[in-house]
């Protein structure tokens, strides 16, 4: 008994005298996307190098996360140390001084390696406020076998006329194959992301230089009527409730000849584990009308630190690790080059190992380069953002307009009525917010 007591006392003494490392616990809020889940799996690699930091994850669905994180940052709740936010939030939150500027990410971070468009999207007045984790644009994904059968050849830079014509020719409703699948589900990040990008290619814009809504312009009318006609003739039934996931499921099941959506889908549709048509997919730039703008968007998921955080130093270390070139190499060594987070760094697109396994890589890069958040459309605009206007009111306005356009697609309202309703609701909101009188 005495021996046991001695041993316990000895062990306790050892424990007390051992140098204790002050632990910093980082709570990271993120979305449930493949690349983020992979990052969670690799957290041990970071904590092994930084034994004084523990990382805890809060993974949420995108819309839930947006609401959760916005509430917390607006009330300075302090629940999170690292936030995953989109390019839409970064400029708005940075201007409100809600984010810590990321100018201390270390000498080997190589900020100049970031793709210029993406870097622009997450900077305000030349200062980086969030570090891009992965970036995406949109492009055309099409079935090479169906195109070949119909004797069609997809150009690298297709026009809308070609896409519309091909979609009609490739539609075979009796076989359950539709010429084109596009987003129809209402939401600023759903159908409006696609339709705003499409409108840019037709020369339309959300607001003129004086923030006057422009849904009464001929360009918007052309965009919406083309979209509705095309989907009626060559789209799948029930398209007004299709978002990214629904279209992905349709495309992977072989029901769509073409699909215009996020470049990140390329790795899903070419993966034989997910897709029945994995080896019959080709890629092309998003369509244009010859006005100099393609119908593609620009988006990135980024890591940022909320202002007022007491763990800025540890958070900076984590962000520098997760968005570095070394992280890309780490993912490649563990899971292969096909699984590295795309769309943020120039060096990735110069890496032959990556280019070998990602046939869509150069198109992704070209699409990202073609989308300019500072000059999204043909005419001048007062806002920043390609498929959105980076103002706090846009989420509400965009979703309202999205509902009108989704109704036009389902046929419960006409194109003209939807545009008129969009114009009046946007005018009302912009007046209320004080942009126009």
């Amino acid at each position, binding site marked *: 008994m005495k021996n046991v007591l001695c041993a316990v006392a000895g062990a306790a003494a050892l424990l007390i005298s051992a140098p204790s490392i002050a632990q910093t616990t980082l709570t990271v809020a993120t979305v*449930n996307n493949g690349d983020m889940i992979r990052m969670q799996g690799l957290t041990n690699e970071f904590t092994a190098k930084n034994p004084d930091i523990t990382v805890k994850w809060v993974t949420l669905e*995108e819309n839930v996360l947006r609401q959760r994180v916005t509430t917390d940052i607006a*009330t*300075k709740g302090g*629940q999170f140390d690292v936030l995953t936010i989109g390019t839409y939030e970064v400029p708005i939150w940075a201007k409100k001084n809600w984010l810590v500027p990321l100018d201390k990410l270390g000498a080997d971070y190589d900020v100049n390696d970031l793709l210029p468009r993406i870097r622009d999207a997450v900077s305000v007045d030349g200062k980086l406020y969030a570090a891009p984790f992965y970036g995406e644009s949109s492009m055309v994904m099409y079935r090479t076998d169906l195109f070949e059968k119909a004797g069609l050849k997809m150009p690298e830079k297709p026009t809308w006329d070609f896409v519309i014509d091909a979609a009609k020719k490739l539609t075979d409703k009796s076989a359950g194959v539709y010429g084109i699948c596009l987003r129809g589900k209402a939401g600023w990040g759903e159908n409006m992301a696609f339709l705003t990008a499409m409108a840019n290619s037709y020369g339309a814009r959300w607001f003129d230089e004086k923030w006057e809504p422009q849904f009464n312009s001929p360009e918007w009318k052309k965009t919406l009527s083309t979209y509705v006609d095309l989907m009626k003739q060559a789209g799948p039934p029930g398209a007004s409730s299709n*978002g990214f*996931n629904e279209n992905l499921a349709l495309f992977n099941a072989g029901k769509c000849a073409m699909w215009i959506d996020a470049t990140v889908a390329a790795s899903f549709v070419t993966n034989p584990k997910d897709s029945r048509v994995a080896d019959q997919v080709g890629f092309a730039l998003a369509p244009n009308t010859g006005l100099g703008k393609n119908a593609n968007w620009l988006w990135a998921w980024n890591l940022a630190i909320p202002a007022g955080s007491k763990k800025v130093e540890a958070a900076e270390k984590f962000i520098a690790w997760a968005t570095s070139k070394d992280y890309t190499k780490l993912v490649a060594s563990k899971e292969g080059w096909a699984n590295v987070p795309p769309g943020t760094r120039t060096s990735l697109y110069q890496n032959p190992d990556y280019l070998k396994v990602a046939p869509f890589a150069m198109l992704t890069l070209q699409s990202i380069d073609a989308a300019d958040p500072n000059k999204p459309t043909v005419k001048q605009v007062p806002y920043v953002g390609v498929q959105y206007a980076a103002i706090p009111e846009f989420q509400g306005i965009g979703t309202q307009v999205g509902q009108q356009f989704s109704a036009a697609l389902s046929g419960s309202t006409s194109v003209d009525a939807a545009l008129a309703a969009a114009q009046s609701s946007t005018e009302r909101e912009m007046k209320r917010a004080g942009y126009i009188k």
Partner: protein
Amino acid sequence: MARMVTTQRKVISTVAAWLAGFLIFFPILWMVLASFKTELEAFAIPPSFLFFHWTLENYITVQERSDYVHHAVNSIIIAGGSTLIAMLIAIPAAWSMAFSPTRRTKDTLLWMLSTKMMPPVGVLVPIYLIYRNFGLLDTRAGLIFILCLGNLPIVIWMLFTYFKEIPKDILEAARMDGATIGRELVYVLTPMAVPGLASTLLLNLILAWNEAFWTLNLSTLEAAPLTVFIASYSSPEGLFWAKLSAASTLAIAPILVLGWFSQRQLVRGLTFGAVK
């Protein structure tokens, strides 16, 4: 002849009941089936009903990626705690309103219910600020408190209607025998209202278990219940339906089992007073 008709009717009503039951249960069944499919089969068009490659892969992934037990324990504590506290407050409240009504009782009841008429998101920011200042964010106590408050009006209303069905004379008889208010509540009222109490308790437990606004918005890690667990598997960009189904199946399993065992009380309670 008459007998024939009865049998036929019985068969028809039985078939109709089973059909209705099956239709209502179908989404849950579909979710359970999807949880055993591969991601490719989960969205196959046309869908395969039973003849697919059954796999436990999704359950293994879900177990690896998140701490189910931690979330489940939180759910049990939060749903159970909020239900018990709500019952403790609601029984005396409903008792007083049912047996000693005043001129204002009806208004009080309606006023209580009116708190349920506003969408919770309308008070999210003030509640969030109060919780931040009192250090209640991401605590089980905080969630128990808000769920208890949220369900209290429904619990009081339900108990009030059950209590009203109990004849006053019985309580008077107890009083004549010298029962105090406490004894009257515990020995006379409660046993008579057991079906009503049980169904209120169960319904409240189910409501608290499934509550997905406050639990998502006021918890982060430590107090996160199963709703947060499910939300971490839903994704607008990527088809993870099989994994989401596996997570959802795990999340509803405890409450489903509880509901199964207590369905007799539930049905009795819900139809209590229906036939007068």
